[in-house]
């Protein structure tokens, strides 16, 4: 039932001080998501795919509302994604309660002011610290997780940020063709993940949820008496417009994280 494991991460900075500034943000995921076994060899790739795949015919389409957010966001830009996974997949296995099979996707809208990079944690974060952007390069040295901790970054140049939030949507997803083993009526069977009933490929499952899905689910969850939303502080690299100037940018950054049922209707 819950085997469509996808989380939308909405980053919506705004300035509470009403100062116009240039905000560039870095979000990165570590290869450590791929396995709790730090000696496991990992592999990864980067790509761009068209946004919004058509779902399979079982459900009728939901009418999508157009929401304007990041002004450079266009559906024709598609979805940029990092994909990473254990080279040796261990089906139905876990290390320290963390899965050892399936593929992880870390994705966002492929807007004009997006840069990306994969590499060691120090290289990726160092590039952003030095340049305010990533190098649009991919590390091809597939290696053990704990060998300079491969890291997958997206950096977005949001430009001026005022008291109106500018939203960027990210997706974190785990796709597993087979979800569980189940001792059913006639013994053990493997049970496929729910997304396989709606999408032909895992990339289709990842690239379809978008900001209008988030907003429609936001409306649904906001109608609950106790909100299922929670605000957390998140690690964001923020750099000042000039390297020698004291940082006077946005003083409040709020991230809303929601895990929602993202099946099409």
């Amino acid at each position, binding site marked *: 039932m819950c085997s469509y494991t996808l989380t939308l991460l909405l980053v919506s900075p705004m300035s509470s001080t009403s100062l116009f500034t240039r905000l560039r943000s870095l979000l990165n995921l570590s290869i450590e998501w791929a396995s709790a076994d730090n000696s496991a060899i990992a592999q990864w790739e980067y790509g761009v795919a068209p946004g919004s795949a058509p779902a399979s015919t079982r459900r009728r389409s939901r009418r999508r509302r157009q929401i304007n957010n990041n002004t450079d966001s266009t559906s024709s830009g598609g979805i940029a994604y990092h994909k990473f996974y254990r080279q040796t997949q261990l089906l*139905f296995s*876990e290390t320290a309660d963390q*899965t050892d099979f399936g593929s992880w996707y870390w994705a966002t809208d492929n807007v004009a002011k997006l840069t990306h990079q994969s590499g060691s944690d120090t290289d990726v974060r160092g590039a952003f610290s030095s340049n305010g952007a990533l190098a649009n390069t991919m590390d091809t040295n597939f290696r053990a997780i704990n060998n300079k901790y491969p890291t997958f970054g997206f950096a977005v140049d949001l430009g001026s940020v005022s008291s109106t939030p500018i939203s960027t949507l990210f997706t974190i997803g785990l796709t597993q063709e087979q979800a*569980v*083993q*189940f*001792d*059913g009526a006639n013994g*053990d069977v493997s049970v496929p993940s729910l997304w396989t009933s709606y999408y032909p490929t895992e990339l289709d499952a990842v690239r379809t949820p978008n900001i209008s899905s988030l907003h429609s689910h936001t409306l649904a969850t906001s109608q609950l008496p106790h909100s299922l939303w929670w605000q957390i502080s998140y690690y964001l690299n923020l750099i000042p417009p000039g390297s020698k100037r004291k940082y006077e940018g946005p003083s409040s950054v709020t991230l809303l994280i929601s895990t929602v049922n993202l099946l099409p209707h």
Partner: protein
Amino acid sequence: MIFPSFPIWIYTNPTLLKLLLDPLFINQESGQYPNQYSMHDLGSHYPNATGHAAGNDEPQPLEECGNMLIMTLAYAQRAKDTAYLTQHYKILNQWTQYLIAEALIPANQISTDDFAGPLA
């Protein structure tokens, strides 16, 4: 784990509760669980819901029998699905008979609050 959480399923969407109960019925109605009382879980460790053919899951006999009856009825009432009760009547009755025989003077056992230890 399902029982403490079931109010949220009943409140938001009773079908979600049914989806959680179905595998428990499928496994136990197949005869692959040997005990007269309801099982505690479908597998010791996710993602392997491979059952307990030896019946040696964490024993919460009275808790689980009671939980299954309460949740199944709650679902059927909310979803207006009495056919679900008919479909599973045989095993629901089995668990009811267990409660009749055992609940008045409980044996020493744990409840869903297993951290509290066994009580009689």
